């Protein structure tokens, strides 16, 4: 460091005393240490075949372009471009999927894997995104939600309105699991709760389902936070839903929540149209 200081002093002193000639001298002096290297480099480069040089330059350019391209593509994947159809087993997700995409009635069985297809929304922009139907069976649900949750820009939670009373605790638990997931609470996808099977006479209305779910989630907040931690020490979700101290309401959530009624089967049975107008409207607003 001392040497450097001395050197800089010397150069400054030189510049100060004899500005004109010594500037050039110092410039030369500064260039000089690099000169031999530059000359050597120039010589090496000239010795090589020009085609070889062009080859190297082209390959470097290709590499750079590929890297930029990949980055662009990878970053595009994490952009949420999918709408997930989730719900309990037998709530009508696969039939809803078929109706939304093709309008046809199809017989369905319990899904074992996911199905996805591009969907064209019915709005002026004609935006299209991917609609994904996830299996609802209890042993498959967590894995598939895990796989697709980061790509979700909205979730359609399908509820079987006819047997809702019996299943209210299971529905609430799944909804709680979705809402307290760390990725979901970070991305905040909008939530549409579709109360399906309205064609059955005993079906509950969307308003009633909303009230019952709010009550149930209230209780679940208490029991879930008191649940045991896992055996490897990892605790459950630490996200607290809604406001502390007050009863849980869906309006307290950071995401947009909407309850609507629909019927995938339609009131006229298999050959008729499905009653999914309100669902399509909501999907168009996404």
């Amino acid at each position, binding site marked *: 460091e001392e040497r450097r200081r001395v050197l800089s002093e010397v150069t400054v002193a030189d510049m100060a005393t004899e500005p004109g000639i010594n500037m050039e001298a110092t410039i030369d002096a500064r260039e000089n240490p690099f000169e031999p290297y530059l000359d050597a480099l120039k010589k090496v480069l000239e010795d090589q075949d020009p085609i070889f040089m062009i080859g190297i330059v082209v390959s470097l350019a290709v590499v750079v372009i590929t890297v930029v391209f990949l980055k662009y593509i990878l970053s595009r994947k994490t952009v949420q471009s999918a709408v997930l159809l989730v719900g309990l087993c037998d709530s009508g997700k696969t039939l809803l*999927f078929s109706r939304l995409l093709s309008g046809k009635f199809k017989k*369905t069985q319990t899904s074992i894997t996911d*199905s996805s297809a591009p969907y064209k929304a019915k709005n002026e922009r004609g935006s299209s995104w991917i609609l994904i139907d996830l299996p609802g069976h209890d042993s498959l649900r967590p894995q598939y939600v895990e796989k697709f949750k980061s790509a979700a820009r909205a979730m359609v939670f399908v509820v079987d309105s006819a047997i809702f009373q019996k299943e209210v605790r299971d529905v609430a638990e799944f909804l709680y699991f979705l809402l307290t997931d760390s990725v979901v609470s970070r991305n905040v996808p909008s939530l549409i709760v579709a109360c399906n099977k309205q064609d059955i006479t005993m079906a509950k209305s969307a308003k009633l389902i909303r009230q019952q779910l709010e009550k149930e989630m209230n209780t679940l907040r208490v029991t879930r936070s008191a649940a045991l931690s896992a055996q490897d020490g*990892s605790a459950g979700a630490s996200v607290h839903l809604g406001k502390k101290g007050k009863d849980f309401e869906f309006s307290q959530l950071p995401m947009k929540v909407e309850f609507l009624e629909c019927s995938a089967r339609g009131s006229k049975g298999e050959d008729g149209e499905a009653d999914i107008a309100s669902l399509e409207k909501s999907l168009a607003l996404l």
Partner: protein
Amino acid sequence: MLDFFTIFSKGGIVLWCFQGTGVTESFTGPVNALIRSVILQERSGNNSYSHDALSLKYKLDNEFELVFVVGFQKILTLTYVDKFIDDVQLHFRDRYKNELEQKGALALLNSHFAFEDDFKMLLREAEESSKARGPTSMRSFNASLKSQKTVKSMIETKGGDKGKEQGGKKNKNAKKEGKAPAAEPVKGEKAKAPTSAQKTEENGNQGLTQEEIIQKKREEFIRKRMGAPVEKPSKSPKPVKEKPKGKEKRVWTLGGSSTKELDYSQSNGNGAHAAGDQGLDAQADPVCACWGAFGGMFGMLKGLVGSKSLSQEDMEPVLDKMRDHLIAKNVAAEIASQLCDSVAKKLEGKVMGTFTTVASTVKGALQDSLVQILQPKRRVDILRDVLEARSQRRPFVITFCGVNGVGKSTNLAKISFWLIENGFTVLIAACDTFRAGAVEQLRTHQRRLNSLHPPQDHGGRPIVQLYEKGYGKDAAGIAMEAIAYARNQAFDVVLVDTAGRMQDNTPLMTALAKLIAVNMPDLVLFVGEALVGNEAVDQLVKFNQALADHSMSDKPRLIDGIVLTKFDTIDDKVGAAISMTYITGQPIVFVGTGQTYNDLRSLNARAVVGALMKA
């Protein structure tokens, strides 16, 4: 005669279905039951399943993600069904290859699969082929050998009548030898000819001249050189006297002359290398050696890149290794093999992507199946259920059962600690009236828990109470009284501790089944230790069997959940968790990791599977 036949995608859309004439019930229910109990519980090793009166057979097509299911009445035994499903699958695939190959579900939704004619034709063919092989008709008496024996020859007498016997046999054998041409390879039934030829030699030596003896021996020798026939153990009575003279050298089918059949070197050739080597082996010899090495490398690379569909042979070595790995991690042996069969069924015919090896695909599939098995099939939230029971003004009853020494009383105390931490009042019913000190142990736990949560905090009432009636009494009676007491005193939870019993001990198993059937607890927990190996399968099967047999109702109460104890003693040999959940299909509700009150955990499926698959 089929009730129904469906073809649906794994995503749940039914592509085509057929319902037999006169069948009114929808098949959706049985097929859903098939999916839930077999495919989702990884029991797809054997491909048939019975549901009520129907028997269902299915086949998975993993390349296009389809499932083919056929259903027929259980009482019918249709022999053509297996081959029929295979034929239908191949036909369907070939015909609709274009629609099926497209990715995404739109193609499946929009196309209409008009498969009826093909299906009817295939069904007709299958039915006819099964009819063509009619029942084999029995041979008539005249065609059998017995009709050719004389009555006298069948009479066994000791000593004197040997001459008559031998005479009779000589006649029979002379007839047979006349029929058997010496040059033909000897067939099975004519294998008797040489043996009987020997016997003629033995028996009829006295009667024949030297030339005839030599002639016979020559014919025998030729016959033996021709076919090396299998010596059938002769059923006709042999005179004991002649045995040492006539003892012939036994000829084995694989023995003696050639060692060609013992050379197994061809069948063990590498599949991956064969493709590369075959083309390159044609080269000149000096080049052959080093090209052979290159060929091996190319073969490996060829296996990595490009789409290749998985076959049973490809997966065999990987699955064997995985099976041994699972067994080394303390998974029960038959469970490990059933799991591997199920994974093989799931992956057969699947097309692998680029840069994926067989091993990685199989390991991924196995990992997914294991996580799926460990995921609970119903909601597991005991606190919520206790709150529900409280709102209905009745106590929530949990019963603990298991073999001796697994930690029932210890884990009962831990669970009651967890419950009282969350503000519930607990009544412990001491239904272990056999083991010395069982009641005192529970009393000590009760005292400690009460000192941790003194009654002053809960309105003067002790938060844990013990209901006991000493030793030697009937456990079911004590449990019933305890539950009635809890209902009167408005306790939230009743924990019933039972005596440990071996699964083979029938009277004790009957007593346990009676306790559970009479008291109808809300939750029956089986306590099993994580150290158990293959025994877990036996214990759980026999416990469930006993509970099902001795219950009077249509829907017997079986084991609802599992408590896995002593989890801190196993390092990463966590296979017992898999064995237990696979056998019962019930979730692991609690995991015990020590002896203090805080050592109670819940199961994290991913962590357990990670520890299991770790090398």
